[in-house]
């Protein structure tokens, strides 16, 4: 394990019956920065994130997170990481406060009430705390999911399209909050997103995936130069349509 990296993945395969969803995946993500995991639908981003979180067992390969083998020390590592996705729900009938309380206990957090109040204030949820999760708008739900993912002050945060379905104002405030969190804590973020403007703003490194493999990596500027494009959206389309770098 290289101390510079928060995630090191090597020789990773995932088969679903005969279908190979992840095919000899190799990549590293640096500590303290945001790494974007990009790729078209079916490229294997969500499968990769699920394996990094221990929700999915790899068919073969190694995953090291925060210097430890994920497959051997999953539970020790899960205390130090967290996950946010608008596609994974929290219990609808519980209030925000109840949901955050349950998850705070799962992470065995000290001073849980204070932590919930702190996050609620930071994410503009303080007036909604006693509202049921199921009664919230999409934007409010995303903020709750983010609050849940920050409860344990994770050193590594995995995010699957964190600002999907949000209006530009809310999306901007969430990005700003994440940037602030990263500056304050030195946390690392792995971000799967289809929003290229978001990636250009937040990511220091980009990993491009296609058909379960890494097809290119670099900083956003390196990728723009390599493909001779003006923005990451055009690079994304080039890669998705199998065009080679310039």
């Amino acid at each position, binding site marked *: 394990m290289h101390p510079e990296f928060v995630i090191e993945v090597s020789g990773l395969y995932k088969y*679903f019956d005969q279908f190979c969803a992840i095919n000899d995946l190799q990549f590293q993500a640096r500590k303290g920065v945001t790494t974007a995991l990009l790729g078209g639908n079916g490229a294997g981003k*969500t*499968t990769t994130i*699920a394996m990094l*979180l*221990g*929700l*999915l*067992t790899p068919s073969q390969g190694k995953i090291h997170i925060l210097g430890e083998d994920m497959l*051997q*020390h*999953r*539970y*020790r590592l*899960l*205390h130090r990481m*967290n*996950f946010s*996705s608008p596609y*994974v*729900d*929290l*219990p*609808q*009938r*519980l*209030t925000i406060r*109840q949901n955050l*309380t*349950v*998850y705070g*206990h*799962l*992470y*065995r957090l000290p001073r849980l009430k204070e932590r919930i109040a702190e996050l609620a204030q930071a994410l503009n949820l303080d007036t909604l705390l006693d509202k*049921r999760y199921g009664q919230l708008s999409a934007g409010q739900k995303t903020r709750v999911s983010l609050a*849940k993912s920050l409860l344990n002050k994770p050193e590594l945060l995995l995010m699957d399209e964190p600002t999907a379905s949000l209006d530009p104002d809310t999306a901007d405030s969430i990005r700003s909050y994440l940037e602030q969190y990263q500056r304050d804590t030195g946390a690392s973020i792995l971000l799967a997103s289809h929003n290229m403007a978001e990636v250009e703003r937040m990511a220091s490194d980009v990993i491009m995936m296609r058909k379960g493999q890494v097809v290119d990596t670099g900083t956003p500027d390196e990728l723009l130069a390599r493909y001779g494009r003006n923005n990451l959206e055009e690079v994304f389309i080039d890669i998705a349509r199998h065009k080679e770098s310039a």
Partner: protein
Amino acid sequence: MQDIHFSLRRIGAVALRHLYLMRSSWPRVLEMVYWPTVQMILWGFITLYLQGNSSLIAQASGLLLSGVLLWDVLFRGQLGIALVFMEEMWSRNLGHLFVSPLRPYEMVVSLLFMSLLRTLIGIGGATLIAIPLFQYSIYDMGLPLIAFFLNLIIMGWAIGLMVSGIVLRYGMGAESIAWVSVFAIQPLCAIYYPVATLPSWLQPVALALPASHVFEGMRELLLQHTFNVAHMQWAIGLNIVFLSAGIAVFLGYFRVARRRGLLLQVGE
């Protein structure tokens, strides 16, 4: 090899999630008491009718009511596990739960606790209502009642864990198994009639079920006022096998779910 570590706080967290749910919905609590009470009332009236026509019932009027209430312990125990687990599936919460440090075996302990609580509320309510309504108290059985209760709820847990594992593996399409599975063994459990009533080829099957020994023991207690230790030993021994199998099936299917990516996909 993963570290083996139990956290009461994590177990409590999952239980708390379901206690919040119960607290927020009085129909859910009412539903827990409703069916055991309806069953108890029905069999209470049948008992009143038969008392004048059957020497057996006249001899031990609580025979049918004890049977129905104790059977409900097994049924509610099983249902408590399956319902609490499926609630996580319906709410698509498994993904979040299992990216937290919650271990699957801690989840199992939470399910057992919630099932115990739901069963105590449901059956407890019905047994208390039976006292003024039919002048029948199941608590007159004394200490053996605790042994009967524990053996029946453990068998219910074993079936509930197996069913939950199957639903996790095969999806909500298999949900109906949770409602009907326990009734497949009901005729073999000797609730209202002795095992000897069954055809001889079926009796070994019945005697392989912990519940049959409990109900045989219950009948002996009510009719002959003796506590049959041998039946209880059989029930305990068989329950060790049943519960071990239930936990193994649940954890086995959980590993399959991890392999097949089902923890993120399940839901309504």
